[in-house]
């Protein structure tokens, strides 16, 4: 497989110190990911499961109180894998936007409020493109906006003059300016109404088709994953619980948690009440022993609270971390 982004055994925790007492929140806890090129890769999970943190780690943007204890992230640059954590600040800066870019969570406040959007676009361009004057960079921006179906007139607007949906689309335009191979999108449609959501998703799909690159899309909204993701991972309390093609996940969810997620989606014509997972997500500071989902799992058995299930392949293209699904450590031993 031609992975553009690989993560190996990521252990990235928030180290919080209050009054001399050290607390560790295990936000990303043993995550392995292989993200292939030319896909929309969805990461789903409820609030506080570490999705946003995982994106920060993939972006190699780890700043205190976040700390990487173990693990590696590899970028595939010019057919060679490079270790993202060992890059110098300058090398990282050069890869940003040209190789990997980022669409922030809630673009409401992602732009400098006291400057016109033109200035923000130029700031990003001037920092990455050498040997071009402002006029050239500006016409490049104009051209880029036009190909995305946005009016170049927005460049003369201030961020607060645009609607939320428009601002989000501008954020997408900004993050795709330099045609990156990977775009990390953190809840790009949250806080938008469905019409604006549709426009934003459409734009992301268009961009992906045109650039043939990879979008890593993080959202809790399963409907969006169903719509545009080609592969997806289900995250729970800092761990990947299930991973596979979107079709497999939606048609044959294997993990009890995934089953809850998918069965909670409303269906047209079906009036039976939707069932959600009982209880609430576990604390990341003191996670339960064994499988992290066992306290809420209706099918849990004694082994679940003693050992941690590994993420293993059960079908050609479908992985799950659950003792219920055949080939796991219990059956291997």
């Amino acid at each position, binding site marked *: 497989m031609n992975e553009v982004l690989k993560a190996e055994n990521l252990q990235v925790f928030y180290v919080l110190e209050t009054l001399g007492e050290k607390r560790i929140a295990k936000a990303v806890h043993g995550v392995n990911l292989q993200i292939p090129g030319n896909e929309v890769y969805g990461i789903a999970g409820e609030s506080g499961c570490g999705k946003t943190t995982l994106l920060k780690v993939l*972006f190699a*943007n780890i700043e205190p109180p976040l700390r990487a204890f173990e693990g590696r992230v590899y970028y595939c640059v010019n057919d060679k894998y490079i270790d993202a954590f060992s890059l110098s600040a300058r090398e*990282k*800066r*050069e890869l*940003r*936007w040209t190789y990997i*870019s*980022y669409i*922030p969570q*809630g673009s*409401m*406040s*992602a*732009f*400098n*409020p*006291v*400057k*016109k959007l033109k*200035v*923000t676009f130029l*700031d*990003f361009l*001037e*920092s*990455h493109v050498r040997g071009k004057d402002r006029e050239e960079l500006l016409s490049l921006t104009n051209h880029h906006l036009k190909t995305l179906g946005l009016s170049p007139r927005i460049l003369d607007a*201030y961020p*607060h003059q645009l609607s939320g949906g428009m601002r989000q689309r501008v954020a997408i335009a*900004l*993050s795709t300016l330099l045609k990156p191979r990977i775009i990390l999108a953190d809840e790009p449609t949250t806080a938008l109404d469905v019409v604006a959501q549709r426009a934003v998703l459409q734009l992301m799909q268009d961009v992906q088709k045109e650039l043939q690159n990879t979008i890593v899309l993080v959202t809790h909204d399963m409907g969006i994953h169903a719509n545009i993701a080609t592969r997806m991972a289900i995250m729970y309390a800092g761990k990947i619980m299930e991973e596979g093609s979107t079709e497999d996940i939606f048609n044959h969810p294997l993990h009890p948690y995934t089953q809850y997620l998918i069965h909670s989606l409303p269906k047209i014509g079906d009036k039976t009440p939707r069932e959600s997972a009982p209880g609430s997500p576990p604390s990341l500071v003191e996670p339960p022993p064994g499988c992290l989902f066992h306290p809420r799992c209706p099918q849990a058995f004694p082994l679940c609270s003693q050992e941690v299930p590994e993420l293993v392949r059960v079908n050609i293209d479908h992985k799950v971390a659950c003792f219920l699904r055949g080939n796991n450590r219990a059956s291997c031993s």
Partner: protein
Amino acid sequence: MKFIKDYLFPRLVQYLLVVFCGITAVFFIPRIAGQDPVLEMIAQIQVQGGSLDPTAVESLMKSLEELYGLKGSLFEQYITMWKRVFTLDFGPSLFQFPTPVSDLLRIYLPWTMGLFITSTLLSWILGNLLGGISGYFSQKRWSKVLDAIIMVIRPIPHYVFGILLLILFAYVWPLFPVGGLVLGRRTAFNLDFVLRVLHYSFLPALTLVILGGASWFQQMKLLVQNVKREDFIQYAQAGGVKERLIISRYVLPNAMLPQITQLTLALGQVFSGVLIVEMVFSYPGMGLLLYRGVTRGDYNLVMGITTLSILTIATAVLVLDLIYPLLDPRIRHR
């Protein structure tokens, strides 16, 4: 046109109202205080010069009342006061009789302006620039050292710091005069005057710049540390925007907004001057003039200075309100 009708006109009315109320208050407060400057003056003359015959006292009282604008009923006095405000002629000063107050202002004002405006602007620019950069790099060692130095300097009172500078640079190492500048009747804005202002105002200006700059520094540092956590800064950092650009186009313009308001208010204080510093360096400024006016019951002088003070502060705030949308496009005149 909508702007004029909906914003500018009401704002100007408000401005005039503020000035009107302020000056009216300045008119009434000394009258409520119940002192009679005319009787005080005559008592003073009698103490110094022995006896005056009753007719002389009578005519003296009349002319003094006229000079102080105390003739007639309260309403007539009030009208006289407004006449004086509009002509900017506040009558003769008492403690430098018979020099008109407007002449005194004309002599002292350039000295205060030279010292006060320059040092306020300089301390504002230096404090904000250093505070901004130091706030942005607050984890760096040099920033922490600078912060510690400023923390020690800022609470030093102006008079202690001023005397320290006087001892060092005027006595031990006499580079600058100890003070005691005698003012001529006329001040012309020529090279000679500028050099003289520079020479005499260097140490007081240094005091004001260092102590003022230290407090701007601390304010700006806090502001920047908050702005630094804003999403748009983190996004620009994540996007690999050059640090130089982040500081100059993102951090400073956003953190500076409240500081600009503060600067306008600070500049409006030019007429009350910087009394303590002027006293320490016996610098002929408005602060000292006002102080003398107050202690010697010079009503005309106090009236003149406070009126101008009200006018400048109100005007400064008006100008700020009008130009603020240029600095923060989120603000709209409605």
